[in-house]
């Protein structure tokens, strides 16, 4: 029984771990591959997006710079235009002043001159970045200054009344040409700025195009990443569902396998029980004959003994020592041995029958007050204990359990009987019974101060027809085997703690509530 239960546990264990390992493997493979692919793809996608973003940012900043430059060009152009305007104004004011020395012209001239100077300074500041334009501006400044001086001189001449001198100057000083030159220079600058502008515009357009390109690429990439991610996630989810299904199937299989095994084991156990029952019955039949005909033989030998006695009286010379020995000694001895052997065999067969019957008995769990149950057993043995001066104490409280009354009673009365039976002669017997709850199980201990059991025999005492120690008590070696079979039957177990001459403690562990084995 013990062996078969161990096998069940082991069998379940290995089967379970095998199946679980397979499931884990399957899950692991698809899981790891899918996760790796998804993570790799997402990382790649986000790296691409990041690159797109950075590029867009760079292009954006660049573009802003370029727009700045374009604006700058417009600014330069504006100033050039204003410069040319002021120059026109300056020249017109002088011409007007020369014709009619109106102070208004003088004012316009002064104003235009100031504006011109301002514009030149502005232009000079604006064109610091461009060496070519800078040179032109320098020349323009120079030209403008000279023109201003020249025009200023003719203006002074006119104001002093040196009209002829002024007119002469107007005709000869080349100021008109200079002004035209300055204007041309402005035009050249304008052209240069326009060239710059168109170049800058082109660059800006290109930049904008690059920006759009990057944006489009990023968009496409985003779309790709999203699609691929969704696809992968969908596949992953599908794989997950598949592995969950297969896990469930495997789990079902496992349960089925366990159920099949349990059923097989139960069937095997039933088979053994039936086998034991049938065998012991069929063994009984010939035993009846052996017994019966031995008795018949004894009966016949009585007739022979009677005859022998008559012969001894009437014709003693017919008898020899051999005949006498055969009839008076050998035959009764043979019959005696046959008898004791068949009696012993009968007891053993009955023991097997009892065990097999116990195994087939239906367990009827009920609430048991262990303290009362133990006292009841002790009372039934009171007479015996008083005879040998043994004492039994029940340490209360004892736990209450739900189990089969008859089985528990048989277990405990066997243990207590043994304790009484194997006390140490000359030492007053002390038997203690105690119980407690431990991890959902009830533990009952029967402790004695008797002769004890050698640790090497602790397993042996529970085996059928095996006994240990000094054989001075009657018994067939059935009690503890029976106890263990019953304990297993109730879903419990029993162990022994003992040393020779130091008493023995039998520890019975039972489920607090008996749970019926599921019927296969």
């Amino acid at each position: 029984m013990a062996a078969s239960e161990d096998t069940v546990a082991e069998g379940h264990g290995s089967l379970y771990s095998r199946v679980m390992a397979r499931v884990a493997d399957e899950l692991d493979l698809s899981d790891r591959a899918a996760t790796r692919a998804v993570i790799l793809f997402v990382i790649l996608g986000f790296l691409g997006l990041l690159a797109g973003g950075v590029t867009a940012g760079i292009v954006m900043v660049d573009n802003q710079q370029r727009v700045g430059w374009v604006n700058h060009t417009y600014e330069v152009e504006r100033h050039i235009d204003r410069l040319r305007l002021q120059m026109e104004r300056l020249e017109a004011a002088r011409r007007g002043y020369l014709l009619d020395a109106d102070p208004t012209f003088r004012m316009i001239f002064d104003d235009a001159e100031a504006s011109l100077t301002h514009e030149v300074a502005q232009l000079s500041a604006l064109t610091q970045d461009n060496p070519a334009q800078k040179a032109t501006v320098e020349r323009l400044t120079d030209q403008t200054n000279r023109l201003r001086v020249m025009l200023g001189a003719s203006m002074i001449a006119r104001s002093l009344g040196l009209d002829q001198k002024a007119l002469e100057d107007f005709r000869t000083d080349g100021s008109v040409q200079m002004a035209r030159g300055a204007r041309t220079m402005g035009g050249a600058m304008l052209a240069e700025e326009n060239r710059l502008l168109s170049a800058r515009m082109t660059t800006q357009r290109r930049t904008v195009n690059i920006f759009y390109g990057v944006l489009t690429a990023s968009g496409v990439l985003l779309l790709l990443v999203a699609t691929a991610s969704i696809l992968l996630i969908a596949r992953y989810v599908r794989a997950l569902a598949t592995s969950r299904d297969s896990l469930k199937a495997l789990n079902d299989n496992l349960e089925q396998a366990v159920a099949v095994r349990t059923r097989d084991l139960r069937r095997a156990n039933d088979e053994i029980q039936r086998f034991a029952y049938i065998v012991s019955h069929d063994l009984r039949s010939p035993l009846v004959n052996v017994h019966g005909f031995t008795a018949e033989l004894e009966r016949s030998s009585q007739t022979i003994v009677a005859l022998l006695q008559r012969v001894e009286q009437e014709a003693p010379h017919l008898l020899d020592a051999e005949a006498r020995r055969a009839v008076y000694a050998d035959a009764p001895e043979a019959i005696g041995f046959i008898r004791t052997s068949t009696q012993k065999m009968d007891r053993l067969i009955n023991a097997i029958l009892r065990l097999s019957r116990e195994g087939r008995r239906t367990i009827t769990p009920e609430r048991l007050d262990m303290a009362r149950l133990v006292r009841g057993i002790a009372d039934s043995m009171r007479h015996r204990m008083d005879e040998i001066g043994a004492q039994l104490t029940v340490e209360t409280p004892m736990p209450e359990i739900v189990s089969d009354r008859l089985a528990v009673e048989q277990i405990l009365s066997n243990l207590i009987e043994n304790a009484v039976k194997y006390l140490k002669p000359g030492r007053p017997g002390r038997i203690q019974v105690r119980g407690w709850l431990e991890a959902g199980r009830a533990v009952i201990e029967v402790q004695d101060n008797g002769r004890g059991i050698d640790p090497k025999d602790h397993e042996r005492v529970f085996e059928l027809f095996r006994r240990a120690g000094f054989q001075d008590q009657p018994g067939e070696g059935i009690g503890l085997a029976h106890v263990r079979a019953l304990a297993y039957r109730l879903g419990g177990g029993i162990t022994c703690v003992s040393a020779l001459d130091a008493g023995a403690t039998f520890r019975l562990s039972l489920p607090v509530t008996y749970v019926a084995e599921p019927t296969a």
Partner: protein
Amino acid sequence: MNGHQPVNIIMVEDDEGHARLIERNIRRAGISNTVHHLSDGSSALRFLFEHPEGPVKNGPALVLLDLNLPDMSGTEILARIKSDPALRRTPVVVLTTTDDKVEIQRCYDLGCNVYITKPVNYENFADAIRQLGLFLAVIQIPESEGLG
């Protein structure tokens, strides 16, 4: 026993030794009725229902029945006897090694009149048979209806 016709004892027992011991002890109890010994189920049924000396054709009888037979279970023979209109009043004594409660109940349910477990101990066994003999000496056994 029966007024005008002696009761036949029909013993269905596959173990020759048991049969011999049973017969000896019946004789020792002072019963001298004819004992027909049959050692398997089918020949027992044939004798019970067809044989000219069988109870159907030849007067009252008492059946001693062992349950463990080589070719069929004794309960089957018991059922056949108890469901047959001609034989159902014939007393059946089940004498077997089985002391399984369920089996005993089943035999009584089928209509067995006495159930005796063969004790392994011969003294008890002989006692049981001798008591059965005393019992045979006093009981009234109805005529088999087959003759009626």
